[in-house]
């Protein structure tokens, strides 16, 4: 019970800090929407892709995934801010194990990332140029999308904590996160369909955890009578397994307030 109270306190603290940081709040939501407008319109009108029907709608799940990627990176970086301000030492000197402290921090990252992803989803659904197909019906499709967003955030926040434990500086952390996450994003089906790629790129897509989340959202929001690239059961199984495993490993790492 006392541990739960500590986790809730840590989550509330991070949420409050996030809401106080207006620039982070606005930019993380506006950036994907801006990209959606510019990239979506630019590619649709300028390149006129023949084999992607309604590119802006196709792009939306990818932008939601991108929002979660950025959000998890920023939220995981707050570990360094807490370390440098010394507050992490104070938390670790409380009567709780380091896992409780990390769990609180990572859960707050999940909540912030999921909320941002859902805001982008909500705003996108209100834009006339974006036509979601809601292939399973509005409510089930929405639930599938929410599940994908939450699981992606569990995976990415866990990964962020895992990397933060091995990288000493925040600058290095951002570099490595970009190095890891941008390929994740490019080969996830966020910007172009995986089934149109050469075989070796398809392999990268298959081993990419983000692909399963993007595919799940494509199935719920974009596809119309399609089974998707992987299919909903496989998306569900792989995403859940990876999210739980990486989150567990990420929050179970040893914590040194000195690095």
């Amino acid at each position, binding site marked *: 019970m*006392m541990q739960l109270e500590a986790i809730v*306190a840590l989550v509330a603290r991070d949420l409050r800090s996030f809401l106080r940081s207006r620039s982070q709040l606005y930019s993380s939501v506006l950036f994907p929407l801006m990209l959606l407008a510019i990239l979506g319109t630019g590619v649709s009108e300028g390149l006129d892709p023949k084999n992607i029907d309604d590119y802006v709608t196709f792009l939306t799940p990818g932008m939601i995934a991108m929002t979660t990627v950025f959000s998890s990176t920023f939220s995981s970086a707050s570990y360094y801010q807490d370390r440098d301000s010394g507050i992490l030492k104070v938390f*670790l*000197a409380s009567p709780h194990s380091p896992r409780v402290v990390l769990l609180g921090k990572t859960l707050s990252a999940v909540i912030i990332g999921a909320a941002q992803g859902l805001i982008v989803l909500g705003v996108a659904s209100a834009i006339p140029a974006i036509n979601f197909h809601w292939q399973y019906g509005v409510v089930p499709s929405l639930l599938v999308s929410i599940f994908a967003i939450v699981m992606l955030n569990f995976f990415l926040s866990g990964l962020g904590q895992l990397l933060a434990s091995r990288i000493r500086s925040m600058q290095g952390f951002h570099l490595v996160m970009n190095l890891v996450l941008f390929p994740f994003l490019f080969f996830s089906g966020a910007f172009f369909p995986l089934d149109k790629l050469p075989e070796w790129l398809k392999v990268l897509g298959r081993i990419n955890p983000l692909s399963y989340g993007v595919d799940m959202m494509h199935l719920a929001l974009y596809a119309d009578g399609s089974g998707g690239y992987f299919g909903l059961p496989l998306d569900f199984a792989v995403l859940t397994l990876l999210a739980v495993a990486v989150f567990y490993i990420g929050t179970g790492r040893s914590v040194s307030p000195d690095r």
Partner: protein
Amino acid sequence: MNLSAAPTSAPAANAEPTQAIDVCDICYSYGDERVALDALSLQVLAGAIFGLLGPNGSGKSTLLSILIGRRTAASGTVMLLGQSLAPRLRGRMAIVFQEPSLDPNMTVRETMAMQGRMFGLKPRDAARETSTLLERLALADRASEMTATLSGGLKRRLELARALLTHPEVILLDEPTLALDPDSRHGLWQHLLAANRDGCTLLLATNDVHEAERYCQTVALLDRGRVVAQGAPGDLKRDLRRDAVRIEWKTDATPEVLTMQSWPGVGHVRLADRTTHVTVDAASPFLTRLFQASGDRVHSVQIEESTLEDVYFQLVGAGIRPPSDGIPRETAR
């Protein structure tokens, strides 16, 4: 004077612990090379103000980090409040860190509330106690301000208020008055002494000799991870045979100080600006020679009471505070 670490023993089963902290033969190394604690043993009685005095790198902070569970000793035993170290025991203790440890994005009151929640206090109790502490530490009018806006002294006071919130039985203090002005330092100690009067054990890690002498009932002198002496400050100084002489120079006296170090009977020499602190076997022959050699450059001379730093120098052959500019101003004799 006890020139070795006090003998330790495990507390008797079912007995009320009279030792707040009992550390026996603990070792800790950073990697393969630097030994931070080398079979260190000490006991801190419940309700005491106990000082760990030693230069940077002598193992003080490492010992504190072991006591709060941040590090684990490679060997030896650590008992806290009569029990083996465990996370739940941290609920009965608190620490004031050497470096600032406040969240700049939280207000003063939020900082206190967070501590209360982390330690399982009921919100109403935490709020009431927070109001009392902020009033007592003269922080009440800043309660709604972000901690980033506080001065260094106020931040320290807030860190102390946070530590006192949970009524800890033991408070670990890692150089708590570092970089504070004299008024803030004095004020902070008044609050710490009040907590001690209420029964709280204070374990102070410091390299401030005067602070240790003034406030600690018992002091352990640390050198390279070992306790070289332990006792009441007065007892530790009683067996010191050397006199301490303070010399004020008219001009820079670096050449004189370097020469002085080779004189017979001269021990610890420390130069700060135009003031030199020297420990000698006997003041009279030293002063005679001083005035013969450099009388025209001496502004004033004062024979002082020896400090724990002189004791430390006699035992270890080095000073507690590092020389400020690299001139070899401290020599073992």
